[in-house]
């Protein structure tokens, strides 16, 4: 029978359980926070969890400062702690650590990247300025500047979101992202009257042509071929500006409007015609406050920049649709459409799904039921969902999670207990580092820096990141790019991140390793350790033990145990003793250990 460690189940266990170091039967001991006060009980989640942990025989536990410091830095700021931050962590409480890393610019950036993957951003499909606006909206949510209800209202009707997922995909993605489950067929069907509202206007992505053209020439394709395929591609990639036409549900539904109860209450979007003919273009209105201009088609102006004049490239150029400027939707129209967002935020499952999403991201095991049946704590979800609904922010939810026992416990199981029998919340999370986080952590560990690989809005695998708007890509180079070879299209950092599972907005990244990823980690570890400038301590005395101590601290971001140093030193000595077939000298032995540490499961998990 499936055992669910809800508080009710724990209460039942309490009635029959055995004592925990107390001679009295467990049922006679009050394990609650009231019965056994503890500083952890001040935390609303821990107030629920502490009695349960006591019942398991472990009680509340806090991970060592190093372990928690690395976990928080990676989850919240998307990077490993600097040596200075690590030193500061030694005296910080979990709440103080959380405040440090949530104040880091990486915090909102990490959240934006997560949403880019969640909503599958793609600037080839929608107007890039709309995507930037959507991304800014996510940033404001995690900066605490926007409430979740307003965020949902804006997101659901955002032209970028609809443009990425038109028609049934809009419904499917709303359910998947905001309600935490797939839409059923009857729900897809029920949403269709709302889909009739949307209208698309095509405009051309000439920068796409130019990016492709350069890439094609870089790959030694003839200019004629590059031009032909560049034109075709840019035609394929012509961008859509999305608007609404509150009369599109006419004429058959002219009197009734667009009626749908897919989100619960009956929504009725009434026809509202500016022009008498319901299909007149004058009835179209923009949802976005912006409208594409010639500068959007080619940032420096079509007439001022040769490469933007695609017609000069000859060979059957594509004629792009002219831009007609739509008026912005007026307040009455927005109020009409706001019914959709209002219906969503009125649902209890919207708030629960928001909480589940953050719990999954930060804990890894949340609702991964195949791993352990006890991967869901309804009381915790209800608590956080209620706070969020009652005016709390997503930022507050994140802070509550990362300062709770769900997050701050050590990943190790409590001494003397059977880890296979314990529920997952009896230990801290263990997740996999992949993609750009692995690379940036590895580069930092050897005293270098890696470029970020954040193609939130583009396809790094197909095009050069020469997007018109600098906000569209953040692919800076690091010091490793000065030494390690660039690929045919990208600096080393970008190529390496792709080998490690892809950049944000590129292919969807693997959540777990596969063998191909392991190939890459092994090769990249070797490359970084070969060129790293800080693989040995400053002023190194040549002693293997001091190198081992230094490397464990730098790579694994924790203090090395004396026995561990002794073992590693023995192995380094064996490598040196192997001579030319192993490590020729002590420095090579240090670099050899560096590879082993970077290519370890300890490094790749956190």
């Amino acid at each position: 029978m499936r055992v669910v460690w809800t508080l009710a189940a724990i209460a039942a266990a309490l009635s029959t359980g055995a004592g925990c170091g107390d001679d009295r039967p467990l049922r006679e001991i009050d394990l609650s926070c009231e019965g056994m006060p503890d500083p952890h009980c001040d935390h609303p989640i821990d107030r629920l969890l502490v009695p349960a942990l006591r019942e398991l025989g472990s009680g509340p536990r806090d991970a060592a400062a190093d372990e928690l410091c690395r976990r928080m830095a990676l989850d919240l700021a998307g990077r490993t702690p600097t040596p200075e931050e690590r030193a500061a962590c030694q005296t910080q409480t979990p709440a103080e650590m959380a405040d440090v890393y949530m104040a880091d610019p990486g915090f909102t950036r990490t959240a934006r990247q997560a949403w880019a993957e969640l909503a599958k951003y793609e600037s080839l499909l929608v107007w890039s300025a709309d995507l930037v606006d959507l991304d800014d909206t996510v940033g404001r949510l995690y900066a605490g500047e926007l409430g979740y209800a307003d965020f949902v209202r804006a997101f659901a009707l955002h032209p970028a979101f609809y443009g990425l997922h038109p028609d049934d995909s809009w419904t499917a993605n709303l359910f998947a992202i905001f309600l935490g489950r797939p839409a059923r067929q009857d729900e897809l069907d029920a949403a269709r009257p709302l889909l009739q509202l949307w209208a698309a206007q095509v405009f051309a992505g000439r920068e796409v042509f130019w990016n492709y053209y350069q890439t094609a020439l870089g790959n030694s394709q003839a200019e004629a071929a590059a031009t032909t395929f560049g034109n075709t591609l840019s035609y394929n990639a012509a961008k859509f500006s999305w608007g609404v036409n509150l009369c599109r549900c006419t004429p058959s539904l002219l009197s009734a409007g667009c009626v749908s109860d897919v989100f619960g209450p009956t929504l009725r979007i009434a026809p509202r015609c500016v022009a008498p003919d319901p299909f007149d273009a004058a009835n179209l209105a923009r949802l976005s406050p912006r409208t594409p201009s010639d500068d959007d088609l080619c940032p420096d102006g079509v007439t001022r920049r040769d490469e933007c004049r695609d017609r000069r490239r000859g060979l059957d150029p594509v004629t792009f649709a002219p831009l007609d400027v739509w008026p912005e939707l007026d307040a009455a129209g927005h109020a009409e459409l706001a019914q959709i967002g209002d219906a969503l935020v009125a649902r209890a499952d919207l708030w629960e799904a928001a909480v589940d999403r953050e719990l999954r991201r930060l804990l890894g095991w949340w609702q991964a039921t195949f791993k352990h049946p006890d991967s869901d704590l309804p009381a915790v979800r209800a608590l956080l969902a209620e706070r969020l609904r009652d005016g709390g922010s997503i930022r507050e939810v994140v802070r509550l999670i990362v300062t709770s026992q769900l997050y701050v416990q050590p990943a190790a199981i409590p001494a003397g207990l059977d880890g296979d029998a314990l529920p997952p919340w009896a230990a801290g999370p263990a997740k996999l580092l992949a993609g750009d986080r692995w690379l940036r952590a590895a580069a930092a560990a050897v005293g270098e820096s890696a470029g970020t690989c954040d193609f939130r809005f583009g396809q790094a695998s197909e095009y050069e990141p020469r997007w018109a708007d600098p906000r569209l890509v953040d692919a800076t180079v690091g010091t490793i790019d000065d030494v390690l070879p660039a690929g045919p299209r990208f600096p080393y950092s970008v190529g390496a991140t792709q080998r490690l599972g892809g950049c944000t907005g590129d292919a969807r990244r693997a959540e777990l390793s596969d063998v191909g990823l392991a190939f890459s980690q092994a090769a990249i570890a070797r490359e970084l350790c070969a060129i790293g400038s800080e693989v040995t301590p400053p002023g190194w005395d040549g002693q293997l033990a001091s190198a081992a101590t230094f490397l464990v601290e730098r790579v694994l971001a924790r203090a090395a145990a004396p026995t561990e140093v002794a073992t590693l030193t023995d192995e380094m000595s064996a490598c040196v003793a192997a001579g030319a077939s192993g490590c020729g000298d002590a420095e090579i032995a240090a670099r050899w250990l560096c590879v082993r540490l970077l290519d370890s499961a300890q490094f790749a998990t956190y």
Partner: protein
Amino acid sequence: MRRRDFLSASLFGAGALACLPALRRRAHAAPGPSARADRVLILNLTGGIRSSAAVHASADVAYNPWGLMAGVSSPFALGAILDDGGAPASYTLGPAWGGAMVPSLRDSAGAFSVLGTYAMTRGDHLRARIEEPTGSASGGDPGILTRIGAGLAAAQTPTGAPAFHVAPAARFGAGLGPLSTFVPVSLASAASVPSSSSVLPQWVSDTGNGFATDDAMRDRLDLPALADRHAVGRLVTETLAFHRRAARDIGARLAEDDFALATAAQDAATLGEVTLGGVGTPLSNGMLKELFALGAPPQYQGFGRNLALAVRMLQIGSPAIVVETPTFDFHSGERVSGPPLYGYLGRTWAALRWLLASIPSGGGTLLDRTLVVTMSDFGRDKGGPTGYNGGEGTDHGADHGCYYLAHAVMGAGTTPGRLVGPVDTATYDARAEAIRYSPPQLLATLLDALGLDAADDAYGLPTSGGPIQELWS
């Protein structure tokens, strides 16, 4: 015993079992000589091919504006777009091949079969991929390669290499799921194998030449630190450790010169033989690359190299390989850009059949024990009166031509020259057909051909309707 032989005998079979105890008891499948195949090769026609213009083509312009390939006698009509119109010289190989001539698709029409499947639900690209090679992003829906890996582990069948997914359109199936351990090796391209690594010899010597006191040394570093992890954390780290061990072993094999297909330096490296005019000739990297480069438009030469890599993977005993093609998702520009891709596909299919039938393997040929199929996201809707939509392309999701998908099938003893799962090519509405096969049944067929239990509830597709035996009748 050579290292690679040892690997063939031990890797990825019983070794994998240690990581998933739940599968250890499920050994009721019987891969081996009694199975019809010991390898499957899937060409995944990314993005949704216009099936109605390909291997079960329509004479209706709306479905197929390019018409039918004339002079071909087979139960299925081939679309003219599959013929790139190359002159005989463009089918002639160079001196390394002894000037051999590669058959065209027209010449090969009787040497393969066509299977039609009909999906009852409207899919999108993502959902179609879940059904076919890759699996879902969460890992909750494993792809066929993952299922095959798990099935072979359950049957304790040693294989020479893991499953490979070459040029995945998206990296699915590697997520959190009960079969995560068996996800295939994802390689972006032929350039992703370790033989193409940028690690310089100097860096190798500067980092200790890969010294190890024994094979288990790297694991010993992790074991003390990870032993006290919670079961959930251990699953993550043990899966990672398993993949690291596998990567070390298969990575060493893929680092050898005969896998260095992305560079010219090792073109002379050989693996196995090809029979030319009754005489065995060592099969070099350069020959493989030449074969698939023959008649290839410049933009598809990378795909050709990936096919060459797939052949090498078959040669070392990988049980399942998916090679994704460049995209067929021509919502626009299909009129101009479609023919080069379709023409190369037709050429490639014929060349692949010719090559696999020429490589000796186990007393027969590689084709005898390899089931080769094409898959795609779905078919495409019919166009307007000209055969296209307003952008000179086609869409998907609103017509039976999208729901019906014709797969080319060859090898593993399948009966050639058959049309299995036919449909009226005036409508492609298979709902009225007496016998109708579904995409999951094709997946079940792949498992069954390998001797795996397609109804197994751990790795199989028990609700698929069962394998399609008609392919062998």
